[in-house]
């Protein structure tokens, strides 16, 4: 009996929640993160680890959140200037900055870090394709010589590949970083890393920006893949920040006590590239007709619980290069019929193939809504869900036998309108991402010229990028469907949070206070 008693005593001890929270002297912020961090090498990672990179490392320039006066602000560089032809860029670096490992931040460190990234050539490293050489001019002056004109200040603000790591770290391989080692200049340092489970960041006491009272000093990333658990964590206050919940859950969640659901436009959009080569969509009138037969309002309402917005041109709202005045197609079946008749299909009688990634239910939904609408003007739409590789394979092989409409998402690698315009619409001999096979020499000329001046005269470049989009709309080169929303949930006792879509799902913890 005594034994039994003892057994139950031990059992009850184990089962009681013994672990009441230890008195917290630290200002802890918990980010319930829906996916693990794939690659913690700052040169190579180009996925969800950017939230770690953005707090541990820094870039030379910083792309400001929408609503700021300037597009860029200084970060590790204090000032910069370009030569008149935009092929030589000189950056004056911040003085008195040290890396977490004690190494000094200077021009040599910048050269070593970026040379490593370029030499590895992984992830988003191709954004540095224009760099011919990097020269150390002075201890705190670094010069970039480019092979062709480019807006290098924008490139260096990228949320991937542009991070500066310490000269010692630059000698390590990817495995070293992925074991949880790091040495940047950022406000936080990696304190511990339990892969696929948890990462803890701690404040860098020597951060060049200094520290004020109330700033969060300890960051916990809990990797939680189950969205039900994510929601429970943020509702209960166990977590302070999360995203990636089912869209329909945000409405009720916004009503809950203590949480704020933050919805802002992202820099990502969904578009449908129309085959500009193959009959019948090689006829501009047909492309315009099926653009008018697209049910924009229904699609926007049914995706993302209605939190997205219909695209206006290729570039998402809130990004430089977006044209507020650009033409926006609307759902107008009469006009569609008229255009089809003009093209020689008075009763429709054409059939089209729309491909999308099979696992993407949103893209499928778009296809179904479009099909119903097209049926009314006598156009048949076959919706073909494929694995991404198969969808892409079909598209790059031969435009003449490829799909008529290609469902596709785009987001920028660094924040320039040319990311969309060049990749998806500039003439290509071998299709790669121009999967509507659009080829317009006038368009090419405009964006090439805009690119050249976008480093030196951004206002003029912006006007030209908008002009280029007008050409796309006139040609109905693609259907610009919807700008995706960024939706984040944060506890309401935290202040200072602003979503910056240039760095997707990155929270800059240094800005937060509680």
């Amino acid at each position, binding site marked *: 009996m005594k034994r039994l008693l003892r057994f139950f005593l031990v059992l009850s001890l184990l089962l009681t929640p013994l672990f009441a929270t*230890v008195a917290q002297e630290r200002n802890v912020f918990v980010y319930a993160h829906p996916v693990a961090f794939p690659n913690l090498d700052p040169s190579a*990672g180009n996925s969800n680890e950017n939230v770690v990179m953005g707090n541990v490392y820094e870039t030379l320039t910083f792309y400001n959140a929408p609503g700021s006066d300037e597009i860029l602000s200084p970060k590790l560089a204090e000032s910069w200037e370009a030569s008149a032809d935009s092929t030589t860029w000189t950056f004056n670096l911040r003085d008195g900055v040290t890396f977490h490992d004690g190494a000094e931040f200077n021009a040599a460190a910048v050269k070593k870090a970026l040379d490593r990234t370029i030499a590895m050539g992984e*992830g988003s490293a191709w954004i540095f394709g224009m760099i011919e050489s990097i020269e150390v001019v002075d201890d705190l002056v670094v010069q970039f010589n480019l092979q062709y004109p480019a807006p290098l200040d924008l490139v260096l603000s990228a949320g991937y590949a542009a991070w500066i790591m310490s000269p010692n770290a630059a000698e390590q391989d990817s495995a070293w970083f992925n074991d949880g080692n790091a040495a940047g200049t950022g406000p936080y340092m990696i304190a*511990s890393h339990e892969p696929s489970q948890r990462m803890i960041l701690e404040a860098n006491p020597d951060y060049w920006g200094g520290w004020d009272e109330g700033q969060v000093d300890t960051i916990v990333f809990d990797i939680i893949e189950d969205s039900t658990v994510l929601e429970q964590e943020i509702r209960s206050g166990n977590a302070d920040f999360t995203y990636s919940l089912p869209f329909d859950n945000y409405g009720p969640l916004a009503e809950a006590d203590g949480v704020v659901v933050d919805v802002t436009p992202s820099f990502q959009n969904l578009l449908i590239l129309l085959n500009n080569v193959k009959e019948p969509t090689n006829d501009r009138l047909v492309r315009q007709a099926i653009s008018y037969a697209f049910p924009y309002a229904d699609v926007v309402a049914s995706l993302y619980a209605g939190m997205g917005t219909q695209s206006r041109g290729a570039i998402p709202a809130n990004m430089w290069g977006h044209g507020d005045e650009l033409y926006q197609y609307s759902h107008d079946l009469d006009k569609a019929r008229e255009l089809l008749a003009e093209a020689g299909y008075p009763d429709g009688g054409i059939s089209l193939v729309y491909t999308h990634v099979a696992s993407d239910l949103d893209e499928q939904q778009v296809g179904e809504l479009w099909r119903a609408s097209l049926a009314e003007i006598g156009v048949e739409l076959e919706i073909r869900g494929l694995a991404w*590789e198969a969808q892409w394979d079909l598209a790059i092989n031969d435009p003449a036998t490829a799909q008529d409409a290609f469902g596709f998402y785009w987001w920028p690698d660094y924040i320039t309108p040319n990311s969309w315009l060049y990749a998806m619409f500039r003439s290509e001999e071998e299709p790669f991402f121009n999967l509507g096979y659009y080829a317009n020499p006038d368009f090419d000329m405009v964006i090439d010229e805009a690119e050249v001046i976008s480093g030196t005269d951004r206002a003029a470049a912006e006007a030209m990028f908008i002009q280029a989009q007008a050409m796309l709309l006139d040609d109905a080169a693609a259907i610009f469907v919807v700008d995706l929303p960024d939706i984040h949930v944060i506890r309401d006792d935290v202040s200072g949070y602003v979503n910056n879509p240039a760095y997707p799902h990155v929270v800059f913890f240094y800005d937060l206070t509680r």
Partner: protein
Amino acid sequence: MTAITFLLRRLSLSVFVFIGVLILTFFVSRVIPGNPAALYAGARPRPEQVEAIKVKLGLDKPLHEQFLVYVSDLLDGDLGESYHSRRSINTDLSIFLPATLELVIAAVFIALLVGIPIGVLAGAYPKSAFDYATRLVAIAGVSVPSFWLALIAQFIFFSSLGWLPLGGRISRDASLFYPIAAQTGFYLVDAAVSSNWDAFFDALHHLILPALVLSAYPLGVAIRMTQASMIEALAENYITSARAAGLSQRVILFKLALKNAIMPALTVVGLSFAYSITGAFLVETIFSWPGVGKYVTEAVLNVDFPVIIAVTLVVTVVYILVNLAVDLLQALLDPRVRLG
């Protein structure tokens, strides 16, 4: 045959099993469609990047050459690098394998500790209410799918009662305020060795629910096997003489009969240890337990071949070793069993 020659013979036979598994997984992973180089390159790679990576990873070489490179790395003890996380698989497994083993060992321990006494009593009182009840438990344990059991257990012990955590291996507070210094990767051992008792109980607290769920199958097996062999043992003449000699029921059941009855139970539970490692894959995913199961599940979703191959090989080795250990244990416990 001595134990040593037995061991050597079995091990040399096992090598063929291992080579078979190696060839099969390697070639299957190379012939099924997919583009590992594109995967390695990350989101939206450029064509020249993909080509460069193909060369870097040796994927441009003929299959047999790739296989030879893989085997020679393997002989050096190098399982390769994950395409998805870029971490060395050796490092990853040194973290994830102990997590899985900790869970499986705990589950089998629970199964033996609870299952054998229950089996003994059920065998001693056949056709009693207790016997029927244990039959129900045993059959349920073996036949109820572990993922369902896991969800129900979470619902009861986390959502309703709030006694046990929902998942994970250690709490946030433990990670923050009394982190475990990793030595063996077995959290209970590491915490105990460093006398970090807060962390020890925290880890134990997290281990209970997944271990209980995972123990359902071996528990059912242990109960049924013990019960069946107890009934057999209790019918033997020496038990009748023991009863005639007036020995207490407790001594008869647990000292005399059990000694003979435990053999088959141990064998089957030993085999279910290996089974539990694969069973842990589901349980780990539901409990966010960062073990090999969760690791390989992620790898499968990301078509991360080096990880899939490596985990298959490691599980093969564990299977082989556990089988061998069970055979040796049998010989050790029962002198009548001859190795050969």
